[in-house]
């Protein structure tokens, strides 16, 4: 019983939060948003703990064609957990960010959009039919575009417009694909969809349209041009949300479709793999030569997304092998990578915000001597960097290990090489920042402003989450095992 209550509250409470923060007077807004955040977090926690096996839930009892059905399995709950953690940390950070007098942006606009984004994401991860996914996707895009415009300067508007245009194109392509698929399959519920017949040209059209649209929205390599501008301009908490969560939604849908719906597309997955490898190389290279920290982190997002898209060829070849355990490993590795990248990227953007707040500019040279001034920020940057590079005490290492072993097991040597080389490239830009941070401060650097404690605490919280994900891996895997597409014999 509690499971259903938790499920409904996960969906509805954020939208209540949107209405509440819009209507309530200034004074009450902060405690109210605090209350809503804790409620949603509690619900997600309850759901994760109570999850035994994948189950289906019709909202308010209506059947499939009319009502909206929810399909709750390990992957969905994991993404919910990720969204919860990142949103929780960002809300704490934003509270400090906007309360501090220095930032000229009024807090009013942030909270409603924040909860709108959170609600749409939660819904997207849970619904089982493609059309509702489209609706959530649009809702998410509008709230994130509006969040970008909070930066209130001309550049932010131009970046937001570019983002809006590309996102709309992507969504329309996705909608067209869904419509064609509906004509073919007669149902929109991906759990009920039978595997797509391989030789039907109309089905190919639908699939390629949907995939291209989602790639555009997920900023995969050649179509990533809108991301750096948008993420670098937005204020720190917003860019954290964008990089950690918003780009993951299209990937989530692609993962659902490619792994659980159409299984016999052996060559197409390698297109995605090749584009992913390109993303890693180009993104990292661009990140290394950037002069502004926020742009660097944005390009690093482009690079790390490449890793995610490497997963498709690996999972594709995994699907064709008989060894269930190996497929389960690959599947868990991909999701773990998404989770660890989310947390690491969010903490990196929060830390960048801290540094910008302290030194008033995000130019790399102004970071000189930051290790002495804001040690906690540099420590969290280090931890996040370690996770991106894939070094031990972090979640990133476990994910990289899983991907690497799966790549080797299925003989995909080029992808294994790219995974390893990507790590080295990532260390290029991570340690470039540390270079300046550890440099002894000479007289010239500007006097550093004091940074509110709650913002540092938020970053530290994410830092500890990164390390915990590197050590306490068993619990997260337990969640992932529930309802995985490759049920291993011994699965709990």
């Amino acid at each position: 019983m509690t499971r259903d209550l938790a499920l409904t509250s996960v969906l509805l409470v954020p939208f209540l939060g949107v209405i509440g923060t819009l209507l309530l007077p200034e004074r009450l807004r902060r405690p109210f948003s605090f209350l809503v955040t804790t409620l949603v977090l509690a619900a997600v926690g309850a759901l994760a703990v109570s999850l035994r096996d994948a189950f289906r839930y019709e909202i308010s009892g209506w059947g499939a064609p009319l009502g909206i059905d929810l399909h709750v399995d390990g992957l969905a709950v994991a993404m919910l957990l990720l969204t919860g953690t990142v949103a929780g940390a960002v809300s704490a950070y934003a509270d400090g960010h906007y309360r501090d007098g220095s930032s000229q942006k009024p807090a009013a606009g942030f909270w409603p959009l924040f909860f709108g984004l959170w609600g749409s994401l939660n819904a997207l991860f849970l619904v089982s039919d493609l059309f509702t996914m489209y609706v959530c996707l649009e809702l998410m895009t509008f709230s994130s575009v509006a969040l970008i415009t909070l930066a209130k300067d001309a550049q932010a508007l131009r970046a937001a417009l570019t983002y809006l245009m590309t996102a709309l194109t992507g969504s329309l392509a996705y909608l067209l694909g869904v419509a064609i698929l509906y004509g073919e399959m007669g149902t929109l519920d991906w759990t009920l969809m039978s595997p797509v017949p391989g030789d039907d040209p109309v089905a190919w059209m639908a699939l390629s349209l949907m995939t291209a649209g989602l790639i555009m929205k997920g900023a995969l390599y050649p179509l990533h041009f809108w991301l750096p501008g948008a993420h670098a301009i937005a204020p720190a908490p917003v860019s954290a949300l964008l990089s950690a969560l918003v780009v993951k939604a299209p990937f989530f849908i692609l993962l659902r479709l490619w792994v659980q719906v159409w299984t016999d597309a052996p060559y197409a997955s390698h297109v995605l793999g090749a584009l992913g490898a390109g993303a890693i190389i180009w993104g990292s290279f661009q990140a290394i030569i950037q002069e502004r920290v926020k742009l660097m982190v944005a390009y690093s997002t482009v690079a790390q997304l490449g890793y995610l898209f490497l997963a498709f060829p690996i999972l594709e070849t995994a699907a064709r092998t008989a060894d269930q355990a190996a497929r389960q490993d690959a599947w868990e590795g991909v999701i773990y990578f998404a989770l660890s990248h989310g947390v690491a990227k969010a903490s990196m953007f929060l830390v960048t915000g801290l540094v910008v707040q302290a030194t008033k500019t995000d130019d790399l040279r102004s970071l000189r001597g930051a290790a002495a001034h804001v040690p906690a920020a540099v420590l969290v940057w280090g931890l996040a960097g370690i996770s991106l590079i894939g070094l031990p005490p972090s979640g990133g290492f476990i994910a990289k290990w899983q991907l690497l072993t799966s790549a080797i097991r299925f003989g995909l040597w080029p992808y294994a090489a790219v995974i390893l080389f990507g790590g080295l490239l990532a260390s290029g830009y991570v340690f470039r920042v540390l270079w300046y941070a550890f440099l002894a401060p000479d007289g010239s650097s500007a006097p550093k402003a004091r940074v509110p404690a709650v913002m540092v605490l938020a970053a530290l919280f994410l830092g500890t989450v990164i390390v915990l994900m590197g050590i306490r891996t068993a619990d997260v895997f337990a969640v992932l095992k529930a309802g995985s597409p490759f049920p291993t014999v011994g699965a709990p």
Partner: protein
Amino acid sequence: MNALLLLSSAMAFSLAALGLWRPAEPFVQRIYPWVPAPALLLGWISSRQAGGAESVTRFPDLLLGVTVGLDDVGRAFLILTAAIWLLAGLYSRRSSMSEGQRRLFRFYFLATYSGTVGLTIAQDAPTFYAAYALMTIGGYGLVIQTRTQAAMIAGRVYIVVGLIGEMLALAGIILAASGSTGFSTREIASSLRTSPSGAWGFWLIFIGFGTKVGLVPLHFWIPRSYYWAPLPAVAVFSGAMTKAGILGWLRFLPPTESLSDSAVILGAGALMAFYGVFFGLVQTQAKTALAFSSLSQMGYPTMALATLMEPGAALERSTAAIVGYSLHHGITKVALFLGLGLLVQSRARPRVRPFVIAALAFCSLALIGFPWTSGAYAKALLKNAGAAGGLWQTVASPLMTLGSIGTTLLMFRFLLLCVRGDHSQAQPARGWISWGLSFAGVLLGAWLLPLSLSLLGIEARPRPSSTESLHMYIPVFFGSLLAAALTHRIWIKRSHLTPRPFDTILQGVYKAVWEDFPRDMNQLTTVVAERLVQIRRRLGIGRRAQRAVEAARRLHTSWALGCALFMAIGALLWAFFAGGAP
């Protein structure tokens, strides 16, 4: 008993260290010459004990399992070393040295002593090697005692050759030890015969310890070091430390019963003997002449070692020959070197001078092997050492006669230089008592040597009477004396020819390796670095790459290209989906 011996060697080293501590200096200064006395006493007592039964005590935890004990050969060398160090110690206490020099001399004297004594009582390879290394390092301090530039170079030559010799010996020992069950010298010697790498091990050990004895190609440190070291140190070097090399041979080289081995060693011994004589004759200083004479005298025990290797060799007779000759040479050489110091001292008191010269003459006679001296007995032992009808028996008499002729000429040269030559490096000293004791040893040598050999249990065949070879030496002796008298006028004038072939080579190598090569290398690296920087700047690699990347980035963010790419990827995906169809 053996534990006491090891204790005495360790005590010597700790006393040396104590000597450096300022408050304890007067106490150490007073007793340091008497440090060898207990070892001498213990050696003598052990020879009297129940026929000197072979007792070995083991300290399993020390180093790699230290075993200490005395066998006949070890006891003989122990007594010889202790006696020589005692005499040299007493002599050095009376010799003129500045306060700082005295403190350092004392430290290195005692350190080298503890190494040399440790050497004689060590029964296992690691301890032997440890003592040998300590002796070599300590010897360095003695060589550079005067601290002049030339002494420093001599010290460097000494330590380089010493280390090379040590490393070669260590390699040989390791090769042998890998095949043998344990590390005791006897096991290693026997494994040299059996293990496949035996030949390598044999020759490495022979050459390694040979550097200390003075094998010719590696001998060039001897004249240089003896020349610059103070007299007591030189007495110790020639008397005791060369014998350490010989003890190393006796401990580790098994009788290999092979004609080729004994022939090679015989050749090396003969080469040493005649090389020493030839270059000794052209010396302008008494001290260096004596140094070359000890180099040539060391050739004879090497020949005796060759007899040990002959097929069917009589082991006791060869060992007796080696030990006998070492004892004789040790005592005589100490008497000669210390006598040289007194000769310089006696310039001030002309009355004593003729007596000193007479004594030196007698010691020279002993060295030549004149009848009724210990030299004659030692040479006799050497003559009948080889196997019946073996290689040594055939070649012994001509070799020995040539040898004695050479030595006679060399010693005559030495006496001439004593009388007329300059003694810049022979420091005067008033060590009359210690010199008197050593001269007594030489004087009574003919009687003392055979007695001590039999007491030490090194049984030679019934003692050859010292008169027996009388008929053979007298004509040789007088003939060479006559020749020397006739031509001595020529020698004195043409004596500028000093042997410097090896030293110059070494100097050249040293200068090249240490000074020239690093300078050129540093220049090379700086030039290459500058060239690289120029090339980079001229090509402007940095700027061009920057512009290219900027252009690519702008291209990427344009909206129109975005849509085009979007269409292309959609089509690509469609094609691949089609490609997937069966």
